């Protein structure tokens, strides 16, 4: 869900995805960066993202991941599910 959300607005390469997760979580989420790749392979297999080679701003050749239509739908489903769960947990904690 996190990766899909990162590439929702623009195509990103692996390093950029890791960086964005790191920054947007205010350095709270910091995992072994390499473990991103098996996850990306899973998204490719499911057809939720597509990968293509491109040149980055720094002139490097990078592999960018772009969200697909089915990826967007999956993201929406997962987000609404997450929100529903978070809301339920929040309710539970505040009213307990």
């Amino acid at each position, binding site marked *: 869900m996190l990766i899909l959300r990162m590439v929702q607005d623009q195509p990103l390469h692996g390093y950029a995805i890791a960086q964005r997760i790191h920054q947007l979580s205010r350095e709270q989420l910091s995992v*072994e*960066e390499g*473990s991103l*790749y098996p996850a990306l*392979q899973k998204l490719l297999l499911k*057809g939720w993202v597509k990968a293509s080679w491109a040149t980055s701003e720094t002139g490097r050749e990078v*592999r960018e991941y772009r969200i697909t239509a089915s990826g967007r739908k999956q993201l929406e489903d997962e987000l609404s599910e997450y929100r529903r769960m978070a809301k339920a947990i929040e309710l539970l904690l505040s009213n307990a």
Partner: protein
Amino acid sequence: MAFFGEWLRRIGYLFNRRRIERDLQREMEMHREMMGEPVRFGNMLRLREESRDVWGWNWLDTAWLDLKFAARTLRHSPGFTIGAAIILALGMGLNLTLFEIYNNVVLKPLPVRNVETLVELGRLSARTGQPLSYPAAEFIRSNHTALKTILLSNRWKTATWGGSEDSLSVRFVSSNWFDELGYGAASGRLFHETVDDRADAQPVVVVSYRFWTRQLNSDTAIIGSTVRINGRPATLLGVVPEAFPTWNGHPAQLWMPIEQAEYFFPDISFKTAWDNGDIEVYGYLTKGMSLAATRDALRPLMDELAAEQPKVFRKGEWLEPYPATTRFERPWERTGRLRNVLDFGFLSLLVLTVACANLGSLVLSRSVGRLRELSVRIALGASRRRVIRHLLAESVLLTCLGAIAGLGISYAAIKTITLNVDIPLTASPDWRTLLTALIVGAFAVISIGFIPTWTVTRRDLNRAIKDGGEQASAGLGQARLRSLLSAVQVAGSCILLLLATLAARNLQHNLSPGFDFDKVAVFQPPGLGNPIQTKRGQDGRDIDFRLFWSAMRLAIATLPETADLALATTTPFVGPFQDVPRLPDAPDLAIAVNSVEGPFFRVMKIPILVGRPFDASDDRTTSVIISRRLAMQVYGTLNVMGRTFPRTPLEGEVLRQRTIVGVAEDARTAQMDFFDGAEFYLPLSTGEFRIARLLVRARTDPRALVYAMREASRKTYPQVKVDATLLSADYTNTLHNAYLTAGLASGLASLTLLLACLGIFGLISYAASLRRRELSIRMALGATRRSVVRLLITQSTRPALWGMLFGFGTSIVALRITNGKGGGLGPYDVSTFLYAAAVLAVTCAASALVPALRAIRGDIAQNLRND
């Protein structure tokens, strides 16, 4: 849909995996370069492995590695590998050959045009099925509206070629036969409608491809020339293509237009005889007409025939369309076929089971010997699953080798059969054969790979490493367990071997008519159909058959070659088949009647079990002899002398009640494919002389008798042209396909024995060779060579002997039980048991002797050091 897309992507990955994995590696390296602290990236090798795992193809790499490793292991034991592959190839090759024959004869569609709409019309009444005569078939052909086209053919008939005395099988066919079935000539031309069926058409003949290539040396110059058939000139038009199918099991060598039948057989009233004939009527269904609709549409035609020919056709008869897709098979023929298929299938599967069981034991012994190696691999980090996979990979490789060699054997066997028998079989395997090979292969992998692997890997392999395999192999291979393994193996082989032998004998019994026909010749006035229609001699006068037969009998009895002779109304194998309605006392039996003279039983060597054969005191109206089966079914005993048959009074002359004067052994003298048949015999009356044939037993050579009989008849009664044939030739013609399969069947039991011996040899000699070290120690401690050999042989053969006793004992009990219930297997006989026991005992002793001799040969100290 998503699932489908995912699989497409998976497959896409499989075909592009090298490029995709390269891309992934590049991408990861780039990522690491961009990072401030590359160490936080993680282990790249592991991450790449995990990424690959996502696509689900890793098992393929592992399997490939396992196969490569298994191939290396097998290459290191060439003796085992070659032996195992040969055993499997024999077992699988046999199964595949039998399947290929069945596939060709039954499963593959008949190779003719529009086979799905082709049918044969069988004449049926509520009582029985009967062949049609030519006038009746012509009537149907001219008046039908239900079918698109009708084709006619007679059943097989024999004729002579040129000056030769040998008989060739002939088919008379309607002139549209080849065109409608979609065949053109291999050389020259075949028959055409409106050309060869004209009244003034020249007599013509076409020959089979096999006859043309073998007997006529593929001579193209002979096409268009004049040849002599039955002494009459005819133009040889052309050659029928090699691929033309064998029709209804009778391969023909010559074809002639059916309209010209009387030209080649002038003594028969073929075209006008309504009451007899053997015409097969085929037709193509009209588009959109079902079988049932066709049957109904043809009913008025049969009613018309019944009105026009009330003596021949009864009201209520109909024409039943039998489709070509099931090879025109009648429901009652299916029982016989299924019975043969079951027998053969059971037998060939037994052979494969023996092969696989033997090989499985061998693999198990080998795995036990390799416990140390397996435990080392586990200690080095291989998972138990991996070890199992590796051991299975060896079996898969062996099975593949066996399957390829088996397909080769099957191909060669079919080619050899095609060369020797006039049946066009296709040797190249089709999808059905490959599927069968796959199923047979899977069966082999499971039995030779899975069971031994499971047994070995259940052992404590970790302990085996600690003691160098000694302890663990002692646990598995200790004397008692090893002995048990040998005993079970031998017992299993004995049971299977006996079942195979008895099943093969059962199969041969099905094909054996129950009487001795080898030295019997048949002497009969000729006729295209049966019963004989010849009433006038060549001089135009009526024949007095009483005079004819007494003259002929005298002339033939005085021939030096004649041993015995008798008249009968039914010629075995050929007919005519005279059936009677089923008896209420024996509703399961199809019953045939034959009118015979007293010496008939002597001529045919059919034993009279109780009572006596007919003599001069017997009369057709009072005496009857019944067969064993009939006696047992109706009365439940053979002691039926003086009782009346049929037990319950029935209508009709044939089934009037008579006194039983004897019980004869079962003999299928009427029709070979009647497995559920029985017969009874009536004394031949002089009124039946017109339809009788003379059966003559020769002293030594029935061929000489045939020639002498023809000569004698020419001299004694020149006005009647007669036909003399060998009963054995008729048998071969009638049971052409069955004869071939009987030959195969007898080979099966021998093959099972060979495989059982190979397996037992492998197991015992391997088990004995594992004890080389122990034997060396015994000898180092002072045991003599002789005592060591004796010890090994005794210890190895004892369990085998126990196994044999158990195996044979079980088989005898099982056979007694099945025989008691009338099971499929025939009665066991002592000779089979003794023979099999002797061969197995010798094999057991030899298997222990070879490694024993090897162990005592050479330097003991050297042996000990090497071990």
